[in-house]
């Protein structure tokens, strides 16, 4: 081959050999430059169509003009041999550089950013690498990273890469798989097609190897390696690897593609942020918990441990995560996440041992449901919103008002209540969502009227005992119930006044602000309406007025005590026109007898010129004993009580308007609890008295 011409390149010397073929140094006699020429092995057994695909893919890759991607100049065929003329790169492979102990974190971050940047470019052009590994990454003497063999793996199939590539006896159809086993993502081993997220997994393996000198998933045989990839968690990387870098590697190495970063640019941004946070050189003697990492500029993160107690705050300018412990006396604040976006709904999902935080974000650029599996350090940012109205509806998503977890035994089920009023459901943990047609196609829907906040389905309540029964509340449509798993829905508004319609007790159309259920007694629901407080003891068949002795029966926020079904908390506001705390005194009201009477709770709350409003989801109760209650206000204050509301403390002030407050205890493998579906508690023995007879002082309407 030496001295031979391939196209207009004269082969000068052999410089390497791999499974794919032999690489030569050559000289381009037309353009007068040194090049590398890879001659694909004849025994690659490429049939003509495979050869054409190789040519096509190599041509696509040649369009990837990027400083960190080895440029392909030309692809050709001579005497039945395919050859690829490419940029000649002189440097060391990352594999050789990482051997033994790995590289300093500064270098791992510097190289990692460049690799992620190269992947981002390729993915944007629809090209998946499929065989990213340290042996395919070369670092030049001036520190420039070059990723080799982009897009080639797909076409050459199994059998012509390095020996490891061929060693998957456990695979049923190895011929359809390409790549190198220790870098392969679990979904590929399962037989799924590789996509850009498989490259992000491989990037995680590369970063792990570069940082430590060893592979995250090892074994003596292909079977052992595959098994480790499918099931094992890699050994943690401690100092000198900074926690931020370790967090990024972990997220890349999440078994489920949907839980990884979704884009290479996200990994790049995260690596850059760790670089710029200046924590790279943290000494090994630093706090064992490590310095707090900053993955996004000017965003503070909380360092969450098992047993911690969290408050999730959605505001009109972003989300916050507050961390404390069971004492709930000191708070560490993380955020703001989603700068400037409305975050109307948040939820903590601890089902099945996961620690996932959900948030809905709304801005000029649309509404998205996002999630984080690392307590806010990184969030999904899907290219396409998975919650979308089908085209035949002619309707577009405006906002997501409620994220409700399915029942504990259905860990992949979630619901979203949205604006315009509709219910969406997922059965695969948020990967795909579908519109609940039974409700959307309800003949009443055209006659639902937008409330002051728009036409929103803001509340979803599941019956924990009957899997086919659930309730939704719509402003202004009223309460609807299904008893057949969502197929059909009936209005359940008997006894609820409609103050904005000529008919005082219509079948539907009431502006219901909130409904809550006590899980131990699913037949019992409480309801806060646009003027009206109600209780139902028969699955919302009818409602009884319970506004007995409250200063106003107008309000938004409503909450059940997690253990006592007779105990409910509300925060009344003065009137429809003046939606502020009555008389400028911020008071929570509590009933402990099912609404027969209410008592004000205000010790520690501002009682002078406190024209505050607490919105419908801005209150939450934890499950400690005594119970903690937390609420946020439109003026950006957050209050908490550790003694069931007897006394209150201000936790934070100066926040943007608080729209949503949720809580969670971070446990291992247990269900996180939130207000949407508290754990069932023992049924109480005492029946409340009906409170419909007593007089309520209501403001003039």
């Amino acid at each position: 081959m030496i001295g031979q011409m391939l196209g207009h390149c004269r082969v000068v010397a052999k410089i390497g050999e791999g499974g794919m073929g032999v690489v030569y140094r050559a000289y381009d006699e037309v353009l007068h430059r040194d090049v590398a020429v890879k001659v694909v092995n004849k025994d690659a057994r490429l049939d003509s169509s495979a050869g054409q695909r190789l040519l096509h893919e190599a041509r696509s890759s040649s369009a990837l003009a990027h400083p960190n991607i080895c440029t392909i100049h030309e692809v050709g065929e001579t005497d039945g041999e395919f050859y690829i003329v490419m940029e000649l790169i002189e440097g060391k492979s990352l594999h050789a550089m990482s051997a033994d102990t790995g590289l300093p974190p500064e270098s791992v971050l510097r190289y990692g950013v460049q690799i992620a940047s190269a992947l981002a470019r390729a993915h944007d052009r629809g090209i998946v690498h499929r065989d990213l590994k340290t042996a395919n990454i070369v670092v030049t003497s001036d520190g420039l990273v070059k990723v080799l063999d982009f897009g080639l793996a797909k076409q050459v199939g199994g059998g012509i890469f390095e020996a490891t590539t061929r060693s998957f006896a456990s695979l049923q159809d190895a011929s359809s798989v390409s790549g190198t086993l220790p870098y392969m993502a679990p979904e590929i081993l399962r037989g799924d097609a590789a996509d850009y997220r498989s490259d992000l997994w491989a990037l995680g393996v590369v970063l792990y190897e570069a940082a430590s000198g060893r592979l995250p998933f090892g074994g003596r045989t292909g079977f052992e390696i595959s098994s480790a990839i499918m099931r094992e968690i890699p050994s943690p990387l401690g100092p000198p690897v900074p926690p931020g870098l370790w967090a990024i590697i972990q997220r890349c190495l999440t078994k489920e593609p949907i839980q990884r970063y979704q884009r290479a640019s996200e990994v790049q941004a995260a690596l850059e942020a760790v670089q710029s946070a200046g924590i790279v050189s943290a000494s090994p003697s630093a706090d064992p918990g490590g310095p707090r990492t900053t993955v996004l500029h000017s965003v503070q993160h909380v360092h969450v441990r098992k047993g911690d107690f969290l408050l999730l705050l959605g505001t009109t300018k972003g989300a916050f995560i507050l961390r404390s412990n069971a004492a709930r006396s000191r708070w560490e604040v993380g955020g703001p996440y989603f700068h400037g976006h409305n975050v109307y709904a948040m939820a903590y999902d601890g089902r099945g041992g996961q620690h996932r935080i959900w948030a809905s974000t709304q801005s000029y650029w649309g509404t998205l449901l996002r999630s984080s599996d690392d307590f806010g350090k990184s969030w999904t940012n899907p290219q396409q919103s998975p919650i979308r109205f089908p085209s035949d509806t002619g309707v577009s998503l405006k906002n997501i008002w409620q994220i409700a977890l399915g029942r504990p035994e259905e860990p992949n089920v979630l619901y979203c209540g949205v604006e315009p009023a509709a219910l969406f459901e997922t059965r695969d943990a948020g990967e795909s969502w579908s519109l609940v047609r039974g409700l959307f196609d309800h003949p009443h829907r055209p006659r639902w009227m937008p409330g002051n906040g728009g036409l929103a389905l803001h509340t979803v309540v599941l019956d924990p005992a009957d899997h086919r029964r659930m309730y939704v509340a719509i402003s202004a449509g009223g309460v609807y119930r299904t008893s057949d798993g969502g197929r059909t829905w009936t209005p359940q508004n008997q006894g609820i006044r409609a103050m904005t319609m000529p008919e005082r007790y219509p079948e539907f159309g009431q502006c219901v602000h909130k409904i809550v259920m006590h899980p131990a007694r699913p037949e019992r629901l409480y309801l806060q309406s646009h003027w009206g407080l109600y209780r139902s003891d028969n699955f919302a068949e009818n409602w009884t007025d319970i506004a007995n002795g409250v200063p106003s029966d107008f309000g938004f926020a409503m909450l059940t005590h997690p253990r006592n079904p007779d105990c409910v908390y509300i925060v009344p506001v003065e009137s429809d026109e003046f939606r502020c705390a009555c008389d400028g005194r911020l008071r929570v009201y509590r009933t402990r007898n099912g609404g027969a009477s209410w008592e004000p709770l205000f010790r520690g709350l501002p009682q002078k010129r406190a024209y505050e409003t607490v919105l419908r989801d801005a209150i939450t109760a934890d499950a400690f004993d005594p119970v903690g209650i937390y609420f946020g206000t439109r003026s950006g204050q957050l209050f908490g009580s550790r003694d069931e509301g007897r006394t209150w403390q201000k936790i934070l002030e100066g926040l943007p308007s608080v729209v949503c407050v949720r809580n969670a205890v971070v446990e291992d493998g247990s269900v996180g609890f939130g207000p949407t579906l508290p754990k069932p508690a023992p049924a109480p023995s005492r029946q409340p008295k009906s409170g419909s007879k007593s007089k309520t002082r209501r403001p003039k309407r």
Partner: protein
Amino acid sequence: MPVTFHIPGALREFTGGRSRVEIEHSPATLAEALSALWTLYPGVRDRITTEQGQVREHINIFIGDENMRYTGGLASPVSAGCEISIVPAVSGGCENSSVARQV
């Protein structure tokens, strides 16, 4: 002559960091130009239009200096070499009205 899109900062995450994106062929209408943009950078689509294909309420698209809302919407003609800017209608700091309406 290609047409050039100016990409706002909030969307560059989806264009590989690019602030300018050139569409190689010559689209006749804004819809065709946007379609070419989506093909190159699919993540931009949902940020600019709703799932029903309408440009979002608070997003303006200018063809040259003209707001597309006054030149025929998505059917607006685009001429060779023109520059198309995507900008939020109200920039920065303005309270979203829907929250103010909630209470």
